[in-house]
Each structure stands twice: as structure tokens, then as C-alpha cells.
């Protein structure tokens, strides 16, 4: 589904990604963990070109990212959920979900509304359809953001620390929605600090530090028997 080859990224003199190779299979849930500043968010943002790679190639569903037209084609197929939700504050929840399907996929208003309501039901927020984002709690906003990305019927979903900006009591409701998605077979790449989620839901854990992938393993193997020294150090600090 996603094939990353030799990905490099520089911000000026700062070398953030140093030759990343990563394949994500269809219906696989890959969890990327690592210390802050390790480049894990940048890696995720490169997948749909919110950051332009300095080198290497990224192919999503067989389409290699290159020109602007290509980028839009890929972005339609890859949903993204941000740490700070980024809902559109001037629109109702329902309109947040309907905008992209209507403008990008030319879906009729009626069909867009139906899809949107079904997705809101799925994330448990049907009754908030006509509220504005600022009237919702953080957890509710993030669930709306997930529904908004799903409204485009993406083939894969990217999550950039989706629970890091949430109050502790709201983390579970968002993780539950993500678990449900994984169960339904969505291809997911998740950057997170939620180790419980990584262990329970992840098919594979990728440990990134200093712009490199240092270890890749099944969650149980990674958490119980980490091989890499820096991964061991990282886990000893957080577990």
C-alpha cells in the first residue's frame, strides 16, 4: 500500500530523515515510536507530501509522488489526523465532513450528508452534527477529525500523535475509534506515545531515532525483547 525507499529530508542544515525504508502492507497497522525530535512526525508528513522529501521515493497504492496533480491524487486516498485536530472552526461539524467529498469528489449534497451522518454515528457524535468545533471537547473534536478524514473513503489513514493534545480522560474515546478502524481492516500508520495502543493494535512497531529506523518488530517482541540499545533505553524511560 505504502512503499518508502531511501527517504531523505533536510530542513536547511538539519538532516532530519537519513535514508528511511518502510513498506506498509494493505490492512496493516504500523505504529511509529521514538523520542521527540527523532523525525517520526516528519516521516509521516512526507507520506502525503505535507513535507517535501529531499530525496528518495514514496509510492502510495502504486502512485509515485511527484508532480502537483499526483500529490492531490494521493492526498485524496490518504486520510490524515493531526495532533491539534485542525477542524474548520467556521463550519458546523457536518459541513467539516462534507466539504472535501463535495469539492474534490463531486459527491452530491444528499450523498455527502448521508455519508457524513453515518460516519458521525460511527464515532458516536451524531447529535453534534450541527454544533461548531469550539463547542466540542478535545476528544470529540478529534473523533470528528477522524470522521472527516474517513469521509473521503481513504485507502490508508495517517495519525500524527492523535492523542497528545488531549486531556487524559479523553484519550480512550479516541483510541477506541482507532481500534475499531483497525479491526475493520483500515491500513494505518500511527505516530504515538500510547504504548498500550501500540502493543494491542499494532501489527508492527517501528522505532525511529535520529532520522533512522533502528528497530522493526512485532509489538510483543519489541516491548518484551528490544534488540537495539537506544530502543532499550527509550523503553526503560517510559515503561
Amino acid at each position, binding site marked *: 500500500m505504502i512503499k518508502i525507499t531511501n527517504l531523505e529530508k533536510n530542513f536547511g542544515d538539519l538532516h532530519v530523515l537519513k535514508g528511511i525504508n518502510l513498506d506498509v502492507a494493505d490492512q496493516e497497522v504500523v505504529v511509529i515510536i521514538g523520542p521527540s525530535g527523532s523525525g517520526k512526525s516528519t516521516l509521516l508528513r512526507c507520506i502525503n507530501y505535507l513535507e517535501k522529501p529531499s530525496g528518495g521515493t514514496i509510492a502510495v497504492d502504486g502512485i509515485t509522488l511527484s508532480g502537483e496533480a499526483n500529490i492531490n491524487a494521493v492526498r485524496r486516498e490518504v*486520510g490524515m489526523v493531526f495532533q491539534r485536530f485542525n477542524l474548520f472552526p467556521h463550519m458546523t461539524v457536518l459541513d467539516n465532513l462534507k466539504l472535501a467529498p463535495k469539492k474534490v469528489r463531486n459527491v452530491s449534497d444528499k450523498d455527502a450528508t448521508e455519508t457524513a451522518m453515518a460516519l458521525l454515528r460511527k464515532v458516536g457524535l451524531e447529535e453534534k452534527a450541527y454544533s461548531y468545533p469550539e463547542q466540542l471537547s478535545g476528544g470529540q473534536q478529534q473523533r470528528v477529525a477522524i470522521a472527516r478524514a474517513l469521509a473521503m473513503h481513504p485507502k490508508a489513514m495517517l495519525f500524527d500523535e492523535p492523542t497528545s493534545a488531549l486531556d487524559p480522560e479523553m484519550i480512550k474515546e479516541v483510541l477506541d475509534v482507532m481500534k475499531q478502524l483497525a479491526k475493520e481492516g483500515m491500513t494505518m500508520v500511527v505516530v504515538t506515545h500510547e504504548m498500550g495502543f501500540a502493543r494491542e493494535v499494532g501489527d508492527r512497531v517501528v522505532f525511529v531515532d535520529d532520522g533512522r529506523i533502528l528497530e522493526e518488530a512485532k509489538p510483543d517482541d519489541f516491548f518484551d525483547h528490544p534488540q537495539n540499545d537506544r530502543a532499550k533505553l527509550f523503553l526503560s524511560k517510559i515503561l
Partner: protein
Amino acid sequence: MVVNLDWELISESVPLLLTGAVVTVEITAISVGLGLLIGMIVGIARLSGVKPIRLISGAYVDCIRGTPLLVQIFIVYFALPAVTGTRINPFIAAVVACSINSGAYVAEIFRGGIQSIDPGQMEAGRSLGLTWGQTMRYIIMPQAFKRIIPPLGNEFIAMLKDSSLVSVIGFEELTRRGQLIIARTYASFEIWTAVAVIYLIMTLTISRFVAYLERRYRTK
């Protein structure tokens, strides 16, 4: 010192001044309207990823904001016809000079408004597959518009006052009407005071209206 105001002269002159005030409002509204259009395009152009577009729009803003409106009016009304050989009507000249001038200030207002929107909004729009233009139109601009209502109101008030400068090319707006009445009656004190009061009433009305708009849009 006791000033004896010639009230009869004032009441006679006010209707004539008011017709001038209407012309002042007209030229201000047209200029700010066109300025809004220019300013929106230039404001967005200043944020363009294409360097030449950014440089040209930046140069326009710098040139206009770095020279006096009075000189710009002279250039449009006297200097350009001297080159092209065709005289322009003072109204057109006034509108052209004021619109181009207003456009530069409005462009900076738009640029600031757009830049004040969280970059996450553009990322969210783009990540959903919307183009840059669609994201601007449906997501960034509607939010930016609300934020720039107060500075746009200030620009309207500034333009209303600055439009008095077009009196120098003989265009008969409020200030010029005042000058003409004084030339006839020598009642300098009465007429300039009346002119000032009329400007004040107009600017206060506009600032109240802007405050109302601001309140209305903030509630949502």
C-alpha cells in the same frame, strides 16, 4: 475674544457642502471597493510560492506605501496625460489614484489576516485533497475575512479623510466645495468648521458600523 458665527451663511452653505459630502462618500466607496479587489489579489500574491509574483506584488506595495497619495494623484492626473497626450477626467483620475493607493494598504491587511490563520488549517485542507485555491477559498479566506473587518474599517475611514486630497485637481468633493464657498464669502472659520464637522459625522458613523459588524461576526 468672542467669535460671532455667521449662522445664516452656515445654514445656506450646508446643503451645498452635503452634496460634496455625497461625492466624497462615492469616491471613497468606489476606491475602497476597487482597493479591496486589488488588495485581495495582491495580498494573496504576496504569499505565492512563485517568486516573481511575490516580488512584483511586494514592489507594488512598497512603491505605493512609500510615496504620498498627493504625489500619486499628481502623477495620474498631470504626469500620465503629459506622456500619453490625452487628458483624463478628474473623477476617473481621483478614483484611479485612490484605488491603487487603497489596494496597497488593503493588500497588507489581507496578507496579515491570512497569515494569522493557523497553518494547520491549510494542511488539513490540503491533506483532504483540496487544491491550494480551494483551501484558500473555502477555509482560509472566510476565517481571514472576519479578522480583517476592523482594519478594513480603519482603511475606509483613512480613505474617506485622504480623499480630501483630490480637491487639488479641482475635483468637487467636500473639501473642494468648502474652498469654493470660502473663495466667494471669505467665511473661512464658519466653512472649515462645518466641513470638519461633516467629516467627523461620517467617520464616527462608519466606526460605529464597523464595531457593530465586529460584534455580529464574533458571536458565531
